């Protein structure tokens, strides 16, 4: 029988550098400009430039191209269209191909004459310089027979349908628990409210970019701006009909992702095809406007939430309906209802989804997909309930506190939400809040305080890592993970340093290459927990191998000891029951003439970890105890806004976030991540929205001048804390991950603060001045 795997809690009861606020190990490269992003591998021999020509119309058929002017331009090497691009082994255009490729889109541009969305690539122009490629693309004429497109689910031509599954097939589209309809009908307090959410675009500062280099006719290296090198490798190799090992994908630095780089999008394979066609390495960067149609978005959506409650504010029924726009080929909708199902104790729940196909690029996971907009509806309605019943918004959340997961009935693996509420309230000064809305002023500005709960699940994930320990006391540790800027380089260096008992500067952590052991996509907050556990397990493998060397070495004090009786403390191998007997790892390696020793480890995260640990546990009684937990991070956001009553402008003036998210690997980078997620959420709450023209189905504000993301002057000083939380059920490190939870509940906290300031409930994101002015105050 297997034995349960070692854990960081056991081997490193006192963490060394893990958790410490270390500066980023890759920081120096980033502040000096040395860090190389995917469009910056200029040394490739004969590198040339590609640009995409995209469609101006959203629906139609390409009837021809006039390439004459474009091709006369000096330096133009190729104009590739669906007419002359070689056929791929597989495309995502059919269900089987889409599944095999793992594509986010069931349609690949430049495979047919059909135009399905505005901004769809219709040609790739390759030239020796960027300027020449851009100019030739401008001269290229595309003849199109345009048709009237469908622009959204609100289009009169749109047909709504019930999908069986949403979020790329990952979540069921209809969930029923208890009898929500009957419970709602019987509820003494009933609230029915509709919430709308604008289209949001991720807009990482680094645009999508691919540099493709065919090193041989059957061997390809791609430098790709992706959150997962393995996913890109799978997609590209499958489409080309190559084996995975013939395609190497490298992402050393990634300029943000937020979900939009979590899939392999059309521009990547098109760049690869262009490189094949011209026989030279080709570089392609999406333009900023192309970022609005090239890598997905958060979909336009309407949610209706019916909330039934008792007069003392206890929830009895939640009924959630969501309607949103999807593309002509995919059934993508964020699963908003997941968080509504689990956040508060409520016995009756029902959720359903409706989609409409429109001539739009497919939507995709955007930071906290589902949880962010879902919590906006839930937390706004709960705030309404609190005001209606005269209960403090924090108190009503405590009254509905879920002691176990209402959705599954499972116990929580850990939950520090009460501590988050208490600490957040203390830091914010919540007890001083005036319970009356619209009653606090700072000069002529209205002041409002709001709060909301945050939560995000620990998904199931696994990955591998390799650790090589050198006798001279340094180590190289590797995993094919990516660092979106979240700090993967840094925190994995810290984990490896502790697990191998080395100083941080003696550890080099490498990532972002399919030649390294496979790690999961950095998305859904899985990277920190999975990769840190993989690194930790690889280090344990190193020690196990060294113990074997020691017990077989006649000159070792550990000669003929049982491997199970040997432990490793601070790099010293010693007997558990007689610690004097032992020696340093370097001594063992030196005697054995080993320059280095390598270990491999598999890290598991989420239910897969708990199941495996439980199965390996010899004690059947303990097995039941260990398994079957619901795993989530929890937190609370507190927000102060000041609203100009005449102009309707809203400014966030104070912010406090407190989270319980398992072990925090680096206090400094974690704080930055929470601040960043909160700012991302403040953007969605107050200013972000892409406007799609309902006649032409084109975006009208596809630029950073017109799509407003928060700027420095929009953001106040922010306070972030973490609750010290030990969770042994989720993975060997006890790490939950914080990428998504940082923005869950943020828009509701802002909206609730706006309500407190003005007495106006704005249920449409973003909360722009026109909406604030047009909304009538709720009569108390």
């Amino acid at each position: 029988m297997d034995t349960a795997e070692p854990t960081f809690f056991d081997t490193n009861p006192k963490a060394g550098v893990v958790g410490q606020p270390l500066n980023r190990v890759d920081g120096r490269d980033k502040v000096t400009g040395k860090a190389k992003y995917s469009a910056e591998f200029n040394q490739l021999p004969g590198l040339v430039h590609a640009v995409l020509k995209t469609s101006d119309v959203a629906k139609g058929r390409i009837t021809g191209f006039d390439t004459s002017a474009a091709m006369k331009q000096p330096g133009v090497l190729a104009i590739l269209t669906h007419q002359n691009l070689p056929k791929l082994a597989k495309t995502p255009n059919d269900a089987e191909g889409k599944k095999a490729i793992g594509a986010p889109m069931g349609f690949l541009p430049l495979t047919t004459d059909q135009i399905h969305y505005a901004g769809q690539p219709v040609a790739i122009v390759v030239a020796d310089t960027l300027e020449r490629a851009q100019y030739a693309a401008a001269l290229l004429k595309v003849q199109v027979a345009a048709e009237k497109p469908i622009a959204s689910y609100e289009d009169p031509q749109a047909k709504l349908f019930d999908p069986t599954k949403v979020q790329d097939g990952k979540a069921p589209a209809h969930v029923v628990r208890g009898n929500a309809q009957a419970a709602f009908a019987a509820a003494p307090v009933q609230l029915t409210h509709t919430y709308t959410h604008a289209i949001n675009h991720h807009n990482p500062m680094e645009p999508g970019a691919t540099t493709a280099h065919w090193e041989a006719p059957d061997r390809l290296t791609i430098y790709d701006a992706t959150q997962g090198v393995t996913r890109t490798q799978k997609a590209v190799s499958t489409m080309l009909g190559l084996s995975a090992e013939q395609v190497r994908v490298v992402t050393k630095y990634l300029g943000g992702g937020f979900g939009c780089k979590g899939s392999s999008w059309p521009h990547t394979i098109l760049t690869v095809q262009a490189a094949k066609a011209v026989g030279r390495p080709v570089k392609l960067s999406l333009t900023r406007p192309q970022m609005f149609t090239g890598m997905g978005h958060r979909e336009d959506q309407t949610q209706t939430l019916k909330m039934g409650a008792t007069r003392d504010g206890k929830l009895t029924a939640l009924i959630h309906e969501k309607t949103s726009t999807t593309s002509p080929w995919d059934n993508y909708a964020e699963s908003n209802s997941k968080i509504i199902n689990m956040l508060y104790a409520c016995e009756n729940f029902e959720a359903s989804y409706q989609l409409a196909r429109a001539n739009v690029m497919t939507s995709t996971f955007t930071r906290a997909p589902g949880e962010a907009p879902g919590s906006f509806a839930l937390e706004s309605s709960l705030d309404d309930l609190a005001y209606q019943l005269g209960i403090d918004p924090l108190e009503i959340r405590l009254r509905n506190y879920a002691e176990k997961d209402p959705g599954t009935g499972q116990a929580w693996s850990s939950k520090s939400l009460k501590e988050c509420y208490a600490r957040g309230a203390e830091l914010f000064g919540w007890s001083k809040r005036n319970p009356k809305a619209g009653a606090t002023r700072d000069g002529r500005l209205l002041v409002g305080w709001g709060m909301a709960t945050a939560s995000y699940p620990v998904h199931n994930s696994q990955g591998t890592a390799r650790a090589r320990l050198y006798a001279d006391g340094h180590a190289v540790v590797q995993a094919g993970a990516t660092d979106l800027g979240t700090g993967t380089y840094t925190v994995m260096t810290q984990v490896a340093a502790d697990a191998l008992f080395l100083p941080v500067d003696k550890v080099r952590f490498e990532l972002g290459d399919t030649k390294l052991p496979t790690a999961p996509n950095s998305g859904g907050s899985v990277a920190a927990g999975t990769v840190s556990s993989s690194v930790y397990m690889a280090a344990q493998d190193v020690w196990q191998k060294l113990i074997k060397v020691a017990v077989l070495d006649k000159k070792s004090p550990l000669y003929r000891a049982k491997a199970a009786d040997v432990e490793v403390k601070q790099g010293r191998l010693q007997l558990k029951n007689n610690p004097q007997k032992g020696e340093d790892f370097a001594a063992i390696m030196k005697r054995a003439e080993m320059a280095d020793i390598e270990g491999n480890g598999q890290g598991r995260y989420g239910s897969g970890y708990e199941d495996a640990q439980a199965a390996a546990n010899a004690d059947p009684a303990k097995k039941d105890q260990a398994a079957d937990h619901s795993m989530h991070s929890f937190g609370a956001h507190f927000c102060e806004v000041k609203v100009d009553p005449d102009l309707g402008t809203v400014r966030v003036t104070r912010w406090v976030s407190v989270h319980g998210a398992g072990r925090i690997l680096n206090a400094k980078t974690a704080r930055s991540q929470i601040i960043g997620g909160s700012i991302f959420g403040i953007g969605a709450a107050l200013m972000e929205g892409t406007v799609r023209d309902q006649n032409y189905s084109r975006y009208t504000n596809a630029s950073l001048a017109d799509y407003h993301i928060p700027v420095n002057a929009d953001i106040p000083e922010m306070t972030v804390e973490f609750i010290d939380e030990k969770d042994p059920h989720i993975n060997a490190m006890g790490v939950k991950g914080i990428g998504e939870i940082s923005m869950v509940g943020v828009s509701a906290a802002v909206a609730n603060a706006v309500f407190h300031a003005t007495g106006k409930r704005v249920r449409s994101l973003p909360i722009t001045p026109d909406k604030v002015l047009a909304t009538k105050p709720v009569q108390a």
Partner: protein
Amino acid sequence: MSTFSSPDTPEGQPVRPEDGTRRSFMKQAGGLLGLALAPPFVGPAERLAAYSKTVEGVTSLQLKINGTVRSIQAEPRVTLLDALREYLDLTGTKKGCDHGQCGACTVHVDGRRINSCLTLAVMQQGKEITTIEGLAQGDALHPMQEAFLKHDGFQCGYCTPGQIMSGVACVKEGHAGSDDQTREWMSGNLCRCGAYPNIVAAVREVAGKA
């Protein structure tokens, strides 16, 4: 007026990419490739061309970057940003929007911060251009770089060179007198990771020492 024909394509012979085999492509592109790899050489004619009122086609441009004069062969429509990134391999300066909307391409020209995507390289000849690569003195980082490291003024790092160049200028301009003033004068540099409070902390620290 001087007109330069393209170095890689004979006049009047459009490239025909569709039937381009690898061999025929290499023949077309060899000229440019050769040129790109050749040591910078500026003849009197090119020097004259670079400063004449009308410039067309590929021209020799001289740019003084981080204290060193560098020559490139580029068309007059090449932006300073693309000259840095694509012709000089100074990729520390980033392209986030190419329209002066994000600030990722911020560099100093004669001591002032500008968006390098909004100016042509040909216009910046004879001026002192400083990029992120020229900020440190050897191994010693500029205080603003140190402050960004210490205060974690970034996550992904893509806006960072622009933020740092802007931060240095912001202090020098006297626009970092208070946090509110810093926020305002640093608002031309977008950061999607949301490092703003940490950026303000970094600028505050350097301004306090200045």
